[in-house]
Every structure is written in structure tokens, then in C-alpha cells.
């Protein structure tokens, strides 16, 4: 079953704009990860944030984590058409397995 919800379910923006996706989860975690999936293919790992971290950056990606609210956000800055994909958050907890959120479909218009 899904760990939690992501919002929005779908997001459409213009190239160059920033995209923000939010994720909520339900249980204790060791870390939270974000993945991208292009057109129903395999998932690509984007970034991992540990439970004792609050913010992390990687290139155009910025992820935040609020364990008190059990929520995370992914910001993609200066978006490109190639960023069009589905984005999933996933939690890695005591069960030593990933549990995925419901996903956000991002469309970046040229």
C-alpha cells in the first residue's frame, strides 16, 4: 500500500519556471527519496534525504524534510522540457524496503 500522498497529482508549467511537489507520509523513516519515471519506464533515483537532515541540494533539485509534519517537498528550479516525467517520493523505514507515494505528473511546456 502507498505510504502517503503526493500533491499535486498533476502539474503543468512553462519552461524556466520552478516546480514544487509535496509528499506526506505516515510512519517513521530512515530516509526519504525522490525518483523520476519517464513514460512508464524504470525509475531513476534523484536525491535522498536522511531523517536527521532538513534540506538538501543537488544541481537544480532542492528537497526539504519536516519529520514533525511527516512531509517533504521537491523543488525543481529553471525547469526544462526534458523534466517532463512522473515524480515519486518513497520512504525507507524500519522494514528496509521502499514505500512509494502516489506520484506527481509534471509537464513542462516549451
Amino acid at each position: 500500500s502507498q505510504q502517503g500522498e503526493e500533491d499535486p497529482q498533476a502539474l503543468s508549467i512553462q519552461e524556466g519556471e520552478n516546480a514544487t511537489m509535496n509528499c506526506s507520509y505516515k510512519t517513521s523513516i530512515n530516509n526519504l527519496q525522490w525518483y523520476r519515471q519517464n513514460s512508464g519506464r524504470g525509475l531513476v533515483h534523484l536525491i535522498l534525504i536522511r531523517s536527521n537532515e532538513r534540506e538538501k541540494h543537488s544541481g537544480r533539485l532542492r528537497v526539504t524534510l519536516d519529520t514533525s509534519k511527516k512531509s517533504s517537498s521537491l523543488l525543481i528550479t529553471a525547469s526544462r522540457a526534458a523534466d517532463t516525467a512522473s515524480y515519486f517520493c518513497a520512504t525507507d523505514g524500519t522494514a528496509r524496503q521502499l514505500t512509494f507515494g502516489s506520484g506527481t505528473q509534471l509537464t513542462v511546456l516549451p
Partner: protein
Amino acid sequence: SAVISQKPSRDICQRGTSLTIQCQVDSQVTMMFWYRQQPGQSLTLIATANQGSEATYESGFVIDKFPISRPNLTFSTLTVSNLSPEDSSIYLCSVRPRTNYGYTFGSGTRLTVV
């Protein structure tokens, strides 16, 4: 990070038949994970496969329908048995090379049952 070769990439199968999906990892890993992604949905864990022991199945998934083999630390197969149209999904394998590292996924198998 690990590299996974997953085969086949897609298949169209008749009802009542079975499909076996293979995942080969380029390094030894303790646990391999199998996921199902139904059309337009997120990923749901089917089972965790450890080498040398029976797979651990999640609620709603049973061994008779989804038998898994894990003969060594680099290879696993998932069979989807007695296919029905409801089994049409993408199936993915995954490994976690190290604690607090991102997981690596195979490229997925898109199954269509007709």
C-alpha cells in the same frame, strides 16, 4: 551504483498463460525487490527476495500467483502465473546497494494480457 538488466522489456500474453521476468544485477546484493505498477498508478511492492530462502510476500500477493526464484546474489526471476487482463501492468525489480543509498531499478517489463 548497481546496474540491473531486466528482460523482457515488454510482452503481450494470452490469458491463462504465464510470463517469467528476469533481473540480472552486475554486483552481489542481499535483497532484491519486485514491484507492480498498474496503469496510471504508483508502485506496489510484491515481494522481497533473499538468496537461499523463500521470498517474503506483501499482503495481497501470494506465491502461487507470483513465484519468485533467487538462485544467487546477482539474479532473480518473477513469474506471473495464470494471467488475466487485470495483471496488465509494469513489473519492476529493484536493489538497494547500501544502507542510506538510493535504490536502483530495472527498466521495467510492460505486460499486456489479452
